[in-house]
């Protein structure tokens, strides 16, 4: 099958063939030199205008759930350096900073729904004064019993959103008829983003009630809207801007807004520039995390280990409000198949309300939880049947006539068979499986585990209207280009990739393209930079803008030189005109004199997607990204310590726009996923206080956690089957889920203790979790 045959929309697509000089090259990050010399400016690095004030949020430290009947803020106001204190009464507009569904007050008006919920904000002359003063408020409270865990919320039957389900077939009947059946349950932990640059916003008041907010956000448009709503001014009076973030990972998609709104409220009230930068502890306590889930499943399968039917239930801890929980938990469901065909299937998701911070987007947006449950099912079937776990996986992956997902979308672009075959060879899986067995029979205390997991990840926002993007491109008369688009840079290299597209289109070198800060004043009504779609949609919008300008230039040149339009091209800084050429700069100058418009706004909307959530039908994704990983670990069955020995990855990015950036995303995503499934454990006490609120108690991967052998390669793709920007594929989120292989490898190591018994291993596989599973294995009857 040719990967090129699909062009059903008849869109002009010349991006597959040809010689490229800028795209598909491993060009370095646009800010590389600035990063290594400390010249890259993050919001906290901006030189503060005179009179800048600092803002710190305050909360009621006594309770996770209840009411405060009185607040004494006098000690706060009396603290030296304090200029004013903001509460709900200081919000001229609507006291809400939720992304869409509501339920997230900027300042609590009396009800406390989690420990850390903001009640007021201190505005002071120094950050230190604001922070110290924020701890001095006195509350009289009425305490209620908080629901902290999934179990608490299930017992109380409280939800932030209604249950949702989809599937097909008579699952119970097929389960009953299946030759074999097993039931399983696992806890899947959450994850703190720990973006190294914490949440920050800097608001500058202008004339006429205008407000300019620099916000470390993945979603400037939402910040703009929420600031306007809180200040009771039109959206047009507010500009939100971000040049770069020091990491986002989903944690700045909806949850950067509150801090921007509070900074803006402070700036509006004091008429002075106001900066709010969250302390690390406050950041961890006050901002949401990856949802943790309890997954329960029943699966029927035949003697060959092929699934006949499955029922999968996900119970997610959403925290106190809906936030993005609808989309996140839907995506858990969309990825509960990972790469496997379930003939009869029913997937259910409950969105439980707990008195904890509102959980939110995190790289993978719920998908990883679904993937981990699917992989557990495969591992459990392997244990029960005695088959090699990779063999079970291969028998269950999508294939001809087994190619419809539980939500009805046909898998048309499956490259997993090739990816699996190649990685199986390059990782030397079979020989290493034998070595691991031999090692385990020789060693009593140390046990090795090996696992090979595939991945299929759907690309597009499942909320259809978000799949649109804009870009603004200006060509100046010296031939330099100004680029702006709606996406935000958080380290993923989006700006570099979009600039590559623009340079390629005009036949210029990258240094002729000026990347500029994302701002709602240039490109309005944007989607968040999320769902891995940043390059897909903004790259397309930029390309469209360039092509609009090029079309005008081509018509002008054709007329001027009497050359047919199809003999005009842009290459090497020249406009190629028939057999001759003229420097791009000359053409641009002439075009200006001839009154040709050299600026354009490009707009793109993703084709083909038709998902209808109410009816649970249609197509949610334009395409799938694929990959596979093979991980080997060693565990110590006396202490629970674990080491990742080797990882091999083969990942599909279509035709890579920038192989260096893509490899970096794959490595980084994998390492982050590895942290999620191994060391990163969030822990709330029974009063609802987050006890893991600093890096001393919350362990993200460090350099020494990275495996000795870490081999990452790009799948040699013929190009995305769908028409995407230069036939590339999105890469931001998918690689995180390749870390499921680490979790499965730990499972495999524990399983080696007693063949035939399924280890009750929960995620993250911390030393404690490993020891619990090991102990259970030792006690288990075969």
């Amino acid at each position, binding site marked *: 099958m040719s990967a090129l045959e699909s062009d059903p929309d008849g869109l002009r697509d010349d991006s597959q063939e040809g010689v490229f000089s800028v795209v598909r090259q491993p060009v*370095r*990050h646009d*800010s*590389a*030199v*600035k*990063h*290594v*010399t*400390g*010249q890259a*400016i*993050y919001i*906290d*690095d901006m*030189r503060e205008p005179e009179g800048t004030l600092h803002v710190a949020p305050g909360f009621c430290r006594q309770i996770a759930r209840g009411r405060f009947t009185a607040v004494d803020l006098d000690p706060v106001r009396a603290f*030296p*350096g304090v200029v004013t204190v903001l509460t709900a009464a200081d919000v001229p507009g609507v006291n809400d900073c939720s992304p869409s569904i509501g339920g997230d007050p900027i300042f609590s008006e009396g009800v406390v729904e989690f420990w850390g919920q903001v009640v007021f904000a201190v505005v002071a*002359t*120094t950050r*230190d*004064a604001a922070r110290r003063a924020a701890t001095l408020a006195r509350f009289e409270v009425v305490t209620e019993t908080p629901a902290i865990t999934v179990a608490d919320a299930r017992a109380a039957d409280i939800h932030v959103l209604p249950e949702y389900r989809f599937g097909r077939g008579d699952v119970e009947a097929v389960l009953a008829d299946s030759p074999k059946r097993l039931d399983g349950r696992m806890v899947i932990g959450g994850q703190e*983003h*720990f*973006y*190294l*640059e*914490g949440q920050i916003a800097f608001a500058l008041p202008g004339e006429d009630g205008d407000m300019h907010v620099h916000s470390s956000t993945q979603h400037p448009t939402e910040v703009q809207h929420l600031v306007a709503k809180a200040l009771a001014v039109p959206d047009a009076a507010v500009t939100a801007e971000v040049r*770069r*973030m*020091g*990491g986002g*990972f989903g944690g700045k998609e909806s949850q950067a807004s509150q801090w921007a709104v509070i900074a803006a409220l402070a700036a509006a009230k004091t008429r002075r520039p106001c900066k709010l930068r969250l302390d*690390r*502890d406050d950041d961890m306590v006050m901002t949401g995390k990856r949802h943790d889930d309890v997954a329960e499943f029943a699966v029927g399968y035949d003697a060959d280990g092929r699934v006949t039917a499955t029922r999968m239930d996900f119970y997610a801890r959403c925290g106190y409000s809906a936030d993005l929980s609808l989309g996140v938990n839907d995506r858990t469901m969309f990825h509960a198949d990972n790469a496997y065909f379930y003939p009869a299937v029913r997937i259910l998701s409950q969105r439980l309300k707990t008195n904890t911070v509102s959980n939110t987007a995190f790289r993978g947006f719920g998908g990883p939880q679904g993937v981990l449950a699917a992989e557990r099912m495969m591992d459990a079937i392997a244990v029960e049947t005695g088959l090699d776990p990779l063999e079970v996986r291969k028998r269950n992956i999508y294939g001809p006539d087994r190619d419809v997902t539980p939500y009805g979308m046909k898998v048309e672009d499956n490259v997993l068979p090739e990816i699996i075959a190649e990685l199986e060879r390059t990782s030397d899986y079979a020989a290493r499986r034998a070595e691991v067995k031999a090692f385990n029979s020789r060693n009593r205390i140390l046990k090795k585990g090996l696992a090979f997991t595939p991945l299929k990840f759907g690309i597009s926002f499942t909320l259809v209207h978000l799949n649109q993007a804009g870009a603004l491109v200006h060509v100046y008369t010296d031939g330099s280009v100004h680029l702006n688009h709606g996406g935000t840079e958080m*380290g*993923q*290299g989006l700006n570099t990739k979009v600039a590559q597209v623009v340079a390629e289109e005009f036949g210029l070198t990258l240094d002729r393209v000026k990347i500029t800060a994302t701002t709602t004043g240039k490109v309005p009504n944007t989607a968040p930079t999320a769902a891995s779609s940043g390059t897909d949609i903004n790259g397309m919008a930029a390309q469209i803008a360039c092509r609009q300008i090029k079309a005008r230039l081509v018509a002008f040149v054709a007329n001027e030189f009497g050359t047919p339009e199809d003999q005009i091209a842009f290459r090497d800084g020249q406009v190629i005109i028939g057999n001759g050429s003229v420097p791009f700069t000359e053409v641009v100058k002439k075009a200006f004199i001839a009154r040709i418009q050299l600026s354009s706004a490009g707009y793109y909307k993703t084709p083909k997607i038709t998902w209808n959530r109410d009816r649970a039908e249609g197509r949610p994704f334009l395409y799938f990204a694929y990959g596979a990983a093979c991980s080997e670990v060693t565990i110590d069955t006396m202490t629970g310590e674990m080491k990742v020995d080797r990882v091999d990855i083969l990942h599909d990015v279509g035709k890579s726009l920038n192989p*260096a*950036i893509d490899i*970096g*995303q794959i*490595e*980084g*995503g*994998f*390492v*982050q996923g590895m942290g999620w499934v191994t060391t990163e454990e969030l822990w709330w006490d029974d009063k609802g206080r987050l006890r893991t609120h*600093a*890096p*001393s108690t919350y362990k*993200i*991967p*460090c*350099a*020494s956690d*990275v495996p*000795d052998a*870490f081999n*990452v390669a790009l799948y040699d793709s013929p190009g995305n089957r769908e028409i995407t920007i230069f036939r590339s594929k999105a890469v931001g989120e998918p690689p995180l889920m390749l870390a499921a292989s680490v979790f499965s490898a730990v499972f495999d190591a524990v399983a080696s203790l007693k063949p035939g018994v399924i280890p009750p291993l929960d995620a993250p596989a911390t030393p404690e979790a490993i020891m619990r599973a090991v102990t259970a294995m030792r006690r288990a009857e075969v």
Partner: protein
Amino acid sequence: MPVDSPVVPVALTVNGKPERLEVDPRTTLLDALRDRLHLSGTKKGCGLGQCGACTVLVDGRRVVSCLTLAVMNDGASVTTIEGLGTPDALHPMQAAFVACDAFQCGYCTPGQILSAVALIDEGHAGSDEEIREHMSGNLCRCGAYANIVEAIRTVAGQEG
């Protein structure tokens, strides 16, 4: 800070340049560098001594500048990322970080680079394993570790 808190003088040599400051005695070296000297290349990741983003060299040794007070370093010589090299004349470690794509968001990068420079001086760049061990105080949430280690290995190889 309370407006009437006493200030104390502190003399530092920062990137070769003598600096005299009057600071609140509780001011960390990090805040003195960032807020008073406007050397914003040194980042604050946690303010708790646990992430390494604020690493600078004090008399050639690597120090997390959020955990040491400015006054405790009176008379010391401090090197920040701005003093290591310039865009036109990068320090070999800076050049290696660029060549190896040893960053993504860049927020941990200044701290990683200063830590890496000190690590080579300490003689801890003998193997990848040793590099990883001795760089474990510098967190990178973007997970650029493989490239960071590669960059350090490259420089260590050239020097050693």
